[in-house]
């Protein structure tokens, strides 16, 4: 899986491209957890505009990342969810646990607060 990385305003923007499923979730999870490893100093914004499908294993990776943030104080936000991913988030109620934004700017602003 191709994951673009960009440092922006004290945060890291990760942009995974394609499907996050059985074949790609391991790489996605590794990259995401590595970005969150520094604890309270870490702020990660996931640009989801290039993710056209998120399976249960992808949700699991996000759950584990969310728990890592709770444990070490790192921050994680998401923005630009595609319609299918938005639907999966709604069904799993993950949109009530993870902070999701429509656009990049408010997502990054939330991390700087």
């Amino acid at each position: 899986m191709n994951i673009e990385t960009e440092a922006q305003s004290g945060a890291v923007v990760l942009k995974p491209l394609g499907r996050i499923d059985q074949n790609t979730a391991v790489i996605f999870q590794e990259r995401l957890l590595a970005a969150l490893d520094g604890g309270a100093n870490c702020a990660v914004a996931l640009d989801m505009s290039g993710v056209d499908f998120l399976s249960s294993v992808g949700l699991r990776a996000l759950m584990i990342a969310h728990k890592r943030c709770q444990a070490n104080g790192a921050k994680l936000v998401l923005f630009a969810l595609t319609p299918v991913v938005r639907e999966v988030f709604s069904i799993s109620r993950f949109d009530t646990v993870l902070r999701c934004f429509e656009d990049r700017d408010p997502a990054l602003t939330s991390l700087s607060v």
Partner: protein
Amino acid sequence: MRVKIWGCRGSLPVAMSTTRVRDKLQAALKAAAGRKFENDAALDSFISDELPWAASHTFGGNTSCVQIDTGSPEYIICDLGSGLREFGVSALMAHGPAKPQTYNIFMSHLHWDHIMGFPFFPAAYIPGNRIRIHSCHPDPRAAFLRQQSAPCFPVHLDRLSADIEFITMRPGETINVAGAQVRALLQNHEGDSYGYRFEKDGMSVVYSTDSEHKPEDTGGAARFVEFFRDADLVIFDAQYSLADSVSLKEDWGHSSNISAVELCHDGHVKHLLLFHHEPAYDDNMLYRIWQETIRYEELMRADGAPPLRVSSSYDGLEVHL
């Protein structure tokens, strides 16, 4: 095999409030506005075919009690929640008090909502009935004794007239009961719980409630996928949303519709039955969760894979396999 849900509610029995009854009446009357019905059959068709599900049904409020009918004259019952009372009355009506029956009970665990129906089980008070309570816990009788001792209940456990036997099962061991092969699996729940797989004549039903599936426990998931493998029906604890199960309600011992679909897909299960409904949810919310689960299954289904049928338990539901 036939499965009947006598109680599908998690944690605590609930009763429908007057407000909710009025909501249903309003929905029905609005839908029927201006309509004329020639007879009761036409009215019945309207209720069945045209009313919104949550207006014409209720999921019900009894706690866990599920009958597995193998065709044997002996009964199989999973858990003794408050739904047991209605089952007991039904069995009494079917046979009368003078014809002793054998009731094989399988206990997921001994928490209150899973044993609270037993003091109201008519068969327990009738001499000649055999009640065989299977459990993987070391001393299940202690829980029943505590429940039927002063000051909790006026009738002491020892005063029940039926022949009551406690049988210890071991997870992984297969036993034959009422014509079915039964196997248990340890589950993640406070004080432990156990799922049961019932097989007869090539058909299989799994009863798996009060079981938490943690996202990081891939080894645990593999055990359940194997336990569920090719089952015709899996009755699954989907009390919480996935988000709740990993945040506020983590370690509360229950699971989600998302985990249900994932494990059932991986195990090539044919039919998933959502169970152990959250007592705080009304019929509209439970119906929404059911429909969302159907949609989620559709989204997650692998290309070319057969669909996993998704149903939601309600008190009185019968599933024929």
